[in-house]
C-alpha cells in the first residue's frame, strides 16, 4: 500500500517536473495557450521542494549566439509586431529561434489576413482572403521536415500550416509525429483532436505512451459524444492525483451537461467557481444549465460577476443573453447574442441561441436566418435543425418541418425530443401510424420530458383503441411516480380520469373507484368535479342510475 502510494507520488513529482519545464519552453516560444494548460495542471499538484525544482536547460553554443536576437524578437513578438520579430530572427540557427521565426511569420500572415477581410475588394472575395505566408512556410517546413531537422514545436507549426491549407491527412500525420517528439505540448494534442472525426480514426492512430495521452483520450471521448467513457477517464485521472485541477473539473462538468445530468453539472460548476472565481471559460455552458433550471438569482449573479471581470468576451455575452432570455427580455437577449457573434462569428452556440430568441419574439424570418447560419458553421448542429423545424411548425407547416426534424433526429437518434416533435408533426398530418411509432420509439429511448406516453395514450384514445390507451396511461402513471420529481405539465389527473372511466366501462368498479379517488387528489377543478360525479356513479351503480332518475320522477 505504502509502496504504491510512494510510487504514485513519485510519479506525480515527475509529472510536475515535466510540467514546469514544458511551461518554460512554451513560454519562450510564445505558445500562450499551452502554457496556460500546463501551468493550470501544475498548479493543481503539490508544490515541489527547492531541491526538486528542475534547473533551466543548458544553453548550447547556438543558443548563446542567438540569445540577444531572440530576446529582442521575443519582446517584439509579445507586442504583436510579428514582421519585426521575424526580421531580427532571420539569420538565427538555434531551434528555439527558428521556431519563433517561423511562428512570427505565420502569425503575421494570420493577422494580415484578418485585417484584409475588412477591406477586401468585394463581398464575393471575402471567402478568398487567405494567409499568403502559408505556402512559403509550407515549402520551407516540408524541406526541413524531409531533412529531419524539425523539433516537436516546429512539427506542431508545420501541422498547423498544413491544416490551414486544408491538407488534413498530411496534417494528422505531422501532429502525430509532433506528439511523439514532444508529448507534453498540449497544443499538438488539441489540434489532433480537432482533426479526428470518428472513433475508428482515433483507434487507427499510433500515439505515444505518456500520461498526457489519457487527457487527450478523455477530451476526445467528450468530443465524440462518448460521455460514459470520457467520465471514466476523467475519474481515473482524478484518482491518480489531479483531483484539484480546474481543467478536469470543468471538463467533467461539460460532459455532464452534454448528457443532461443537470444536477451533477451544476454542482461541479459551482465548485469550479469557488476554486477559480474569475474564470470565464465554460461559463456559457454553466449559464445554459442555470437557464434550464430557471435559477434566476444565480444566473443574475453570474452575469453581473462576469461583466465585472470582462464584458467583451463571447462567454460573457452569452451568459447575459441567457439572463435576459430568462427574464423574457428577448430583444436584449438577441442583442447580446449578436454582440457575441461580432466578437467571434464562428461561435456556433450564439447563432442557435439567437435563433431561439427570435423565435420567442415571433420573428420567424430572422430565426430561420440565424439557424441557417448555425448550420453553415456546423452542419451537425442538431439544435439548429430542431429550431428550424420548430419555426416552420409555428408557421403551421408541419409537413415542411418534418424534413428538419428528420435531420435533427438523424444527428441524435436517441434523443426523445426530436422523436416527440416528429410524432406531433405526423399527428398534425393525420398520419397516426407514423405518429404512434415515433411516440413509442421516443418512450423506448428514454423520454426526457415524459410526454411521449401521454401523447401516445391520447392518440390511442382518439383512435378508439381503448386497451392500448389504458395500457399507455398505466405505464405513464408508473413512470411519473417512479421518477419522483414534480413535473409542471404532468397530467396524472387526466390519466387517472381516463383509467377510471376505462375500468368503469369494463365493470372493474374497485379499480375505477381507486382511480377516481386518486384523481380527486389533484386540484384541477374540471377533472376533479368530473371525477366526483363519476365516483358517485361508480359507488352507487348499479343502483345509482335509479337514484339519479328518481328526482325527475318526483317532479
Amino acid at each position: 500500500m505504502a509502496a504504491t502510494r510512494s510510487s504514485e507520488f513519485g510519479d506525480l513529482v515527475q509529472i510536475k517536473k515535466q510540467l514546469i519545464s514544458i511551461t518554460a519552453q512554451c513560454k519562450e516560444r510564445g505558445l500562450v495557450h499551452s502554457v496556460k494548460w500546463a501551468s493550470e495542471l501544475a498548479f493543481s499538484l503539490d508544490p515541489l521542494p527547492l531541491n526538486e525544482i528542475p534547473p533551466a536547460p543548458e544553453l548550447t553554443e547556438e543558443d548563446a549566439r542567438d540569445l540577444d536576437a531572440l530576446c529582442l524578437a521575443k519582446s517584439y513578438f509579445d507586442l504583436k509586431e510579428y514582421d519585426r520579430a521575424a526580421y531580427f530572427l532571420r539569420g538565427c540557427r538555434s531551434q528555439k529561434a527558428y521556431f519563433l521565426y517561423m511562428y512570427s511569420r505565420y502569425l503575421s500572415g494570420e493577422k494580415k489576413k484578418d485585417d484584409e477581410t475588412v477591406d477586401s475588394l468585394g463581398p464575393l472575395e471575402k471567402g478568398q482572403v487567405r494567409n499568403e505566408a502559408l505556402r512559403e512556410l509550407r515549402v520551407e517546413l516540408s524541406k526541413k521536415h524531409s531533412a529531419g531537422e524539425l523539433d516537436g514545436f516546429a512539427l506542431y507549426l508545420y501541422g498547423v500550416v498544413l491544416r490551414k491549407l486544408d491538407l488534413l491527412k498530411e496534417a494528422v500525420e505531422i501532429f502525430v509525429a509532433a506528439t511523439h517528439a514532444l508529448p507534453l505540448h498540449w497544443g499538438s494534442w488539441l489540434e489532433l483532436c480537432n482533426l479526428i472525426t470518428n472513433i475508428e480514426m482515433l483507434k487507427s492512430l499510433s500515439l505515444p505512451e505518456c500520461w498526457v495521452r489519457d487527457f487527450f483520450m478523455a477530451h476526445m471521448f467528450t468530443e465524440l459524444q462518448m460521455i460514459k467513457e470520457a467520465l471514466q477517464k476523467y475519474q481515473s485521472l482524478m484518482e491518480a492525483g489531479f483531483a484539484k485541477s480546474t481543467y478536469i473539473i470543468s471538463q467533467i462538468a461539460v460532459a455532464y451537461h452534454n448528457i443532461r445530468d443537470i444536477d451533477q453539472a451544476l454542482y461541479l460548476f459551482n465548485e469550479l467557481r469557488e476554486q477559480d472565481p474569475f474564470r470565464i471559460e465554460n461559463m456559457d455552458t454553466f449559464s445554459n444549465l442555470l437557464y434550464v433550471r430557471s435559477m434566476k438569482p444565480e444566473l443574475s449573479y453570474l452575469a453581473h460577476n462576469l461583466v465585472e471581470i470582462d464584458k467583451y468576451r463571447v462567454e460573457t455575452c452569452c451568459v447575459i443573453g441567457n439572463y435576459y432570455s430568462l427574464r423574457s427580455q428577448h430583444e436584449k437577449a438577441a442583442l447580446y447574442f449578436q454582440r457575441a457573434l461580432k466578437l467571434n462569428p464562428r461561435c456556433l452556440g450564439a447563432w442557435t441561441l439567437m435563433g431561439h430568441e427570435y423565435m420567442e419574439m415571433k420573428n420567424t424570418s430572422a430565426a430561420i436566418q440565424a439557424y441557417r447560419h448555425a448550420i453553415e458553421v456546423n452542419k451537425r448542429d442538431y439544435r439548429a435543425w430542431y429550431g428550424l423545424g420548430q419555426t416552420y411548425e409555428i408557421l403551421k407547416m408541419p409537413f415542411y418541418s418534418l424534413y428538419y426534424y428528420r435531420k435533427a433526429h438523424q444527428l441524435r437518434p436517441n434523443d426523445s425530443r426530436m422523436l416527440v416533435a416528429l410524432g406531433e408533426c405526423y399527428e398534425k398530418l393525420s398520419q397516426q401510424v407514423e405518429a404512434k411509432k415515433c411516440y413509442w420509439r421516443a418512450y423506448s429511448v428514454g423520454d426526457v420530458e415524459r410526454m411521449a406516453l401521454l401523447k401516445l395514450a391520447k392518440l390511442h384514445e382518439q383512435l378508439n383503441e381503448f386497451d392500448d390507451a389504458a395500457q399507455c396511461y398505466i405505464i405513464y402513471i408508473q413512470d411519473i411516480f417512479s421518477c419522483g420529481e414534480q413535473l409542471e405539465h404532468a397530467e396524472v389527473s387526466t390519466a387517472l380520469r381516463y383509467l377510471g372511466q376505462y375500468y368503469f366501462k369494463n365493470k372493474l368498479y374497485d379499480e375505477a373507484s381507486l382511480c377516481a379517488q386518486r384523481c380527486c387528489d389533484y386540484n384541477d377543478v374540471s377533472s376533479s368535479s368530473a371525477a366526483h360525479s363519476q365516483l358517485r356513479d361508480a359507488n352507487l351503480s348499479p343502483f345509482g342510475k335509479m337514484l339519479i332518475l328518481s328526482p325527475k320522477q318526483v317532479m
Partner: protein
Amino acid sequence: MASVHESLYFNPMMTNGVVHANIFGIKDWVTPYKIAVLALLHEMSTTKPMALLDRRRLNKLILPLQQGPDLTLEQFLKIVEECCLRMVNAVKHRLFLMADGELQDMEHFFTILPNAFSDSEAFKTSVVGLFMRQMLLAYNKLSFSQVYKLYKSLQQYCHRVQPELSALPTEDMELTSNEDPSAEHIDKDELDTASLHQSELRSDESQGPLSQKQAEYFLARQAYLLKNDENKAMSPAKLQDELNNILKFNPDFAEAHYLSYLNSIRVQDIYISTHSLLHYFDRLILSGGEGKSNGDEGYGRSLRYAVLNLATLHCRFGHYQQADLALQEAIRIAQEANDHVCLQHCLSWLYTLEQMKGSDSVVLTEDSVKIAAHFCLPYLASLGIQSLVQQGAKQGMPANKLLDALRGTDIMHWKQSLSELIEISLAQTTSIWRMYGKSTMARQQAQLLLNMNSLEPVNFSVQQNNTEAFAVALCHLAELHAEQGLYAVVSDIMKHLKQQFPPHTQHAKLWMLCDLKIQFEKAMNDGKYHLAEPHVTAISALNSTEGLYRKAQLLKALNQTTEASQILQQLQQQCEKSKDIEMTIRVMLASAELHWDSSGFATALPLLLQALALSRQHNLQSLTSETLLHLAFTQLMLGIPEQALVLVQDVLESVLAHGSLIDKGRALLLAARCQMALAGAAAQEHRLTALEQAVHTLDEAAVYFSQLDCKERMRDIHYLQARLHHTLGNISQRNKCSMLFRLLDQELPSSGMTVVSHL
C-alpha cells in the same frame, strides 16, 4: 494558436447579427481583368480610324467580355488578337505601362478614363457606358489599402503572363511566376518539393471567384439551358462544382441553391435536391422579409410557394403520398392567407396528382378551369382545358367537342404568345388523331409542331425543343413511320430522340417505350419470337399494362394458349378498373383470336361485337376497322363469305387510307380469301373472273407484305396463289409460285398454324 486570432476577426458584412451579401450595394467591383477590359474599351474609343470589320468584331466581343468570368491576361489577349491585331499591342502597352510603372499610373488611367467616353458614341446609359460608370464608382469607393491591393494584383496579373511573352517556357520560370515576388529567394534546387504543389496552386488560381454580376449571368445562362436544351448545359458534376464554388465565396447567394436543386433533379438525386430546395427557400424567406415594402406579404408568399415546390418535387419522384401531404399544407396556408393565385396553382397540381395516381379528376379539373378563368390566369385555365381534353378523349367524348375545345384555347394561346401551351396543344392533337386512327392528320400535326418557329426569344442560340410535347410528337412520328415499314427513318428519329432526351432525363421513358414497341412489333412480324421476348420484359418495366398485353401476344404466337388467356383475363379486369378503352378493345380482339385457335368461331362473335360497339362509341377508327376485319374473318370461317366480303370491302377504303402496311396486307389477303370462297360457290362463267380477281388482290397484298419483309405471310400468299393458278391452269405461274413457297417454307420453321386459322 488559431483561437487567439479568431477574436481579431470581425465581419464587416454584419449589422445586427444579420449578414448582408452586399454592404455597398455594388454588384461588381474592380479586378485586374476588368481593368484590362476597360483598357480595351478606352483604346477602342480613342483610336478613331479603324477598319470597319475590325470594329464590328470588337463590338461583338464587348458583351461576352463584360459578362463572362474573369480571364487570365493570356486568354484575354488571345481573344482580342483574333479580332484585331493592332488593338492587342495598344492594350498590352497600356496595361504594362501601369503594371511596370507606379501606383499613380493606374490612378491616372482612371482619371482619364471618363474623358475618352464623353465625346464618343458610347452613351451613358449604353451597356458600355453603364459598365464604365460602374467601374469608376467601384474604384472611387475603394479605401487606401484596397487601391494598393488592387494595384498589387494588377501587377501580378500582368507579370504572370510574362514568361510566355518572353518565350522562356522552362519549368522553373513558370513555377516562380506562380509564387509571389517575395518568394523569389526560395532556392531553385528545391524544385522537387515545390513542383508537388504546383498543380494544386494552379487549380485554385484558375477558380477565381465570380463577381455577383458574373455569377448571376452564369446562373441565368445555365438555368435557361437546363430548361431548354439540357445537352448544351454543363455536365451535372461540373455544374455542381461551379455552384459549390460560388456558394463557398458567397453562401448567401440563394439562387445558386435553386440551380443546384434543378441540377440534382436532373440526375434524380432526391437527397440533394430536397436539401437545396429547402435551403433556397430558407434564404428566400430572408430576402423577402428584408424588403419592408412588400412586408409580410412577400414573406408569407414565399412560404406558400416553398411548400408547393416541395410537393412538385415529391410528385416528380413519384412519392404521391408525400406530395399529397405537402399539397394539402400548401392549400391550407394559402387559404389562410387568401392567396387565390397560389390556391389556383395548388388546385392544378392537385388534379395533376390525382391523374398521376390514376384516379378520376374531371370534377377537380373543371373546377380549376372555372376558377382560373375567373381570376384571369390564362395559363392555368388552358392547361386545365388541355387536361380535360385528354381525359375526355380517353372517356370517349365526341371528337368535335374535343377538337373545338382545343381550337378555342389555341386562339387564346396565340393571342397571349403562350408558346409552351401551343406546343402541348399540337402534340395533343397529334395524339388524338393517332388515337382515332387518322394517321395522315397525325403526321401533319406532328410535322407542324416540329417545323414551328418557337415564339420564345432565342437566347444563347438555343431554341427550346426538349419539352414533353416534342418528345411525344417525335415518338408518334417514329411509330407512324414504323407502321409504313420505313425502319431507316425510324432509327434516325430514335437517334435524335436519344440525343435530345438522354436516358436520365424526365421524358426519356417516352421514347424508350416507343422504341421497344416498334422493335417488338418488328420481331413479331418477322416471326422472330425469341427476339421479342426480352422486349416484353423491358416494356413491362416501363409500363406494366402494355407489358402484360405484349406478353399475351407473344404467348399466343408461341401457341401457349392457356397462359395467354389467363393473362388476357387479368388484363381485362385491370383495364375495366382503369377505364383504358383502347387496351380493352385490343384485349378483346386478342381473346377473340384465342377463340379462333380453338376453332370457337361462334364464341368469338359476341366479344367482337362488343369490341365493335366500344370502338365505334369512342371513334377509334383504326380499331373499328381492325374489329371489322376480325368479324369478317369469323364470318368467313363460319361459312358466310358473302357477308364477310361485304364487310371487308366496307372497311377496305379506310384501311388503305390510314392503316399500317401489315393491316393493308391483311385486309387484302382476307378479301382475296373471301373472293376465293365465293368463287368456289359461283357459277362456272363467273368463276374464272372471280379467281382472277382473287389473284390480283393477292398480288396487291404481296406488295405490302414484301415491303415489310414479312415472310410468313408471303409464304401463305404464295401458297394461295399457287393453288389459284393451278385451278386457273396457269402452269408456269403455278410452278413459279410453288417454288417461291417451297423456298420460304424451307427457310422458316414450320409453324403449327395452318393458313386458314388466322387473320
